[in-house]
Structures are given as structure tokens and as C-alpha cells.
């Protein structure tokens, strides 16, 4: 019987993931202690987002992600959609800035200035709506290309690289969608444009999910090659994975569009 301790133990411990999650929590908490007042719901959304990303990568759940296609799809739904969605929704910039040591906050104006300027240019390019949407959908297709998926699941280094690209891209995308408050370096899109981007990323995700679900052939041989976590019909595993790629992923666009509209109405109310 698997006990709670066994469930909490990471299947493949990853120091970078652990450190990133720990820093995300510590800096945010420090920001709150230094007087930043994000409010209950944003704080809950932020910690839930970080917690979910940690849970699917640094607990025994990761074992299932590696040896069941359906569990892998759920892991990526959280790494690329739900986790970054919740973090970006909380717009934690002010709290994180308050939590960072002053020396770190001054870094962009110090000797590393050219580096930060280059980073800023790259960031702004990646945050062009067309490019952001293209990358968001493109990455899902890229890692689900059967040959590439095979290598990514076979090599532990590529596996972590894949998961990092999903989280980073998820954060970029949802940040662009939920960006609000004081203007930063993220391009500010109108609510209509945000909803347009959200609508445009839906059909390719639905098409891919439906294709996997209804495909009559076993597309991802790697799970047969490496063995599954428990005996399960490969086609059933693939169908569940396809449905996860299809329905909840597309629903996230709808949920985000409703939130973008709600923000817009709230702003109108404040003006009125």
C-alpha cells in the first residue's frame, strides 16, 4: 500500500524544479510580510498554481506521468494551462517585487544592464500576440509529435527540458492574457484582442485532442516500449489522454475569456 510519505516522495527529484517552487513561495511570502497586500483570493490562486506545478512534478504523481499517456496529458494540462493560469491570474508582480532583496531589484540598472535590455527585447518579441499564440499551440504539437515525444519520454534530460518549456511558455501566455494594473514591459492588449487570441488557440487544440482520441492506431509507442504504470488497454489510455488534450484545454480558453470580460466590466463600473 502506498502511504502518504511515499506519495510525497518525488519519483525523479529535480533540484531546479524544487528550488524554483521554493523561491516562488518564499519570495511571495516575504513580499506579504513586507507589507504587500495581494488579498485572499489572489494569494490563494498564486499558491495553488505553484503548488499544483510542484505536485505534478515532485511527487509520486510524476511516476504516472512518465508511464501513462493520460497521466502525462494531465501533467501538461497543469504545467501549461492550469498552474501558470492561476499564477498569472493573481498578477503577483507587486508582491514578488516587494519580496525580492533590494540588491536583486537593482540588478537591471547595474552592470548587467545590457543583458537585461536584451532579455527585455526577447520578452517583448515573444509576447507579440501572434507569436505568443503560435508558441502556445506550437509547443503542444511539437512535444506530441510521436518521434519527438518518444525521445522526450526516453531521455531524462529531455523530459525535464520539455516540462520546463511548458511551464515557461504557459506563464508567458497567461501573463499576456491577464496582464493588468500598473504598466510593465508586457504589451497591453485590449480585451477584444485577448479574447481573439484565446479563441484562435482553441480550434487547433480541439483538433489535436480529437485526432488523438479518435485515432484508430496506437500513436505513442513509447508507453508500450517503456511499460505502463499498470496493465491498461493502450487505446483506452490514449483516448483518455486525447480527451484531456481536447476538452479541459479548450475550456481554459473559455474560462479565461470570461475572466477578461469580468475585468473589463469591473473597470467600467469603477469609471461609472
Amino acid at each position, binding site marked *: 500500500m502506498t502511504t502518504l510519505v511515499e506519495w510525497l516522495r518525488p519519483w525523479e527529484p529535480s533540484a531546479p524544479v524544487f528550488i524554483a517552487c521554493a523561491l516562488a513561495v518564499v519570495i511571495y511570502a516575504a513580499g506579504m510580510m513586507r507589507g504587500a497586500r495581494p488579498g485572499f483570493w489572489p494569494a490563494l490562486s498564486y499558491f495553488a498554481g505553484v503548488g499544483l506545478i510542484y505536485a505534478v512534478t515532485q511527487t509520486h504523481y510524476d511516476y504516472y506521468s512518465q508511464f501513462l499517456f493520460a497521466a502525462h496529458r494531465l501533467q501538461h494540462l497543469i504545467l501549461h494551462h492550469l498552474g501558470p493560469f492561476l499564477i498569472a491570474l493573481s498578477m503577483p508582480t507587486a508582491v514578488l517585487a516587494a519580496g525580492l532583496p533590494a540588491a536583486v531589484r537593482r540588478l537591471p540598472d547595474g552592470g548587467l544592464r545590457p543583458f537585461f535590455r536584451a532579455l527585455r527585447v526577447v520578452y517583448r518579441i515573444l509576447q*507579440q500576440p501572434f507569436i505568443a499564440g*503560435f508558441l502556445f499551440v506550437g509547443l503542444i504539437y511539437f512535444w506530441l509529435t510521436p518521434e*519527438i515525444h518518444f525521445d522526450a519520454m*526516453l*531521455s531524462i534530460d529531455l523530459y525535464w527540458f520539455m516540462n520546463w518549456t511548458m511551464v515557461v511558455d504557459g506563464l508567458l501566455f497567461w501573463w499576456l492574457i491577464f496582464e493588468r494594473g500598473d504598466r510593465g514591459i508586457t504589451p497591453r492588449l485590449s480585451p477584444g484582442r485577448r479574447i481573439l487570441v484565446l479563441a484562435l488557440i482553441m480550434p487547433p487544440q480541439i483538433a489535436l485532442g480529437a485526432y488523438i482520441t479518435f485515432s484508430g492506431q496506437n500513436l505513442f509507442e513509447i508507453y508500450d*516500449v*517503456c*511499460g505502463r504504470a*499498470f*496493465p491498461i488497454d493502450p487505446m483506452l489510455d490514449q483516448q483518455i489522454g486525447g480527451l484531456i488534450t481536447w476538452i479541459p484545454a479548450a475550456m481554459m480558453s473559455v474560462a479565461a475569456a470570461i475572466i477578461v470580460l469580468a475585468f473589463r466590466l469591473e473597470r467600467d463600473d469603477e469609471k461609472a
Partner: protein
Amino acid sequence: MKRLDRRLLPRLLVLALGLLLVACGGRDYQTKGIEGLLPDLAFQLTGEDGETLTEADLAGAPTVMFFGFTHCPDVCPTAMARIAAATEAAGKGLDSDLQVLFVSVDPGRDDPQKLARYTDFFSDRVSGATADVETLRELTKRYRATFGYDEPNEFGDYNVSHSSAMYVFDADGNARALFRPSDSVAAMAADLRRIAEG
């Protein structure tokens, strides 16, 4: 022009990443090349004679490793018949001794004697080994594989999910190729010969 550059950059990145992945996997194999993707051969198991067996005992010749169980109704016998045919085809005219290690992930039912009887049936090149479940977990994890057990039925029989791949290592123990169920015996034989030749 500047606008074009902006759009081109991410696409080039994706393309570069794709090429990198293809390069990692190795393209010259007729089966699946895994150089750089999986670690070297290393294990400590119990052989058919009941003695400890390690990678040092198999050094000097290419080794094919397979994870299975002797009660396996389909995947394992098929894989063993295929690899026996491929090693026979590849072994002609080669000085090198190709060897196949059948690692049972079902130590509850497979003891060394049973493994010896099972592997003898396929080829002299095939030998069996097993260990306790914990050791097998570590070994399969090293090669990014796993196994699991079903609930036993009223006769005590149970199904085991396991890897269907054959991992091919060269004489120095470097991971070179992965044989999948979809690879043909001819392709396996060609790659075995290639790996045996260095």
C-alpha cells in the same frame, strides 16, 4: 525587415530544437538509435546459476537487455523469438559474441532454475536473470522503463505490465539502440552487426 526578423526568430528556435532532438537520437540506425539518450549498462542481478551477475560479466560483447516474465503470454515469447532470429542472422561471420539478457520483473514466480529452462528454449545466446523488486525498480528506472502487477485471479495468476523494448549496448556497455516491437528482424540484425563491429 525588422518585423520579419521578429517572427522568424521563434520559428528558427523551434526548428533548431527539432534538429537537435533528431541529432540526439542518431539517424544511422535502422531501428531506434539511443546514443546519448540512455545511460550505460550497469546492473547487479542474480543469474541462472544463482550467482551474482553484473555488467562486468558481460563486458567484451554487445548485450541486448529485455525486461519480461516467463508467464508472459505474448510479448515476451515474441520478443525472444525475434531477437533469437536476429542474433542468429547477425552472428554469422562475426567474432563477437552477441548475448541476450532476459531480466524477469516477476521474481515472485521466476526463480533462476525456471529462467534457465525458459531461456534455453529460445537460443544459447539468451540467458536469464532477476532480483528483488526494489533492485528491479532501480534498474528499470535507470532505463526509463517500469513494470506493474495486476490483482491475481482465483488461480493465483496475474498479469504484469512491462517494457516491450530491447536495449542494445555495445561491447563497452554504451547504450546504442532500442528495438521496438515495430522494428523488423532484418533491421534488428543489421543494427546488431553494426554495433558488434564497433
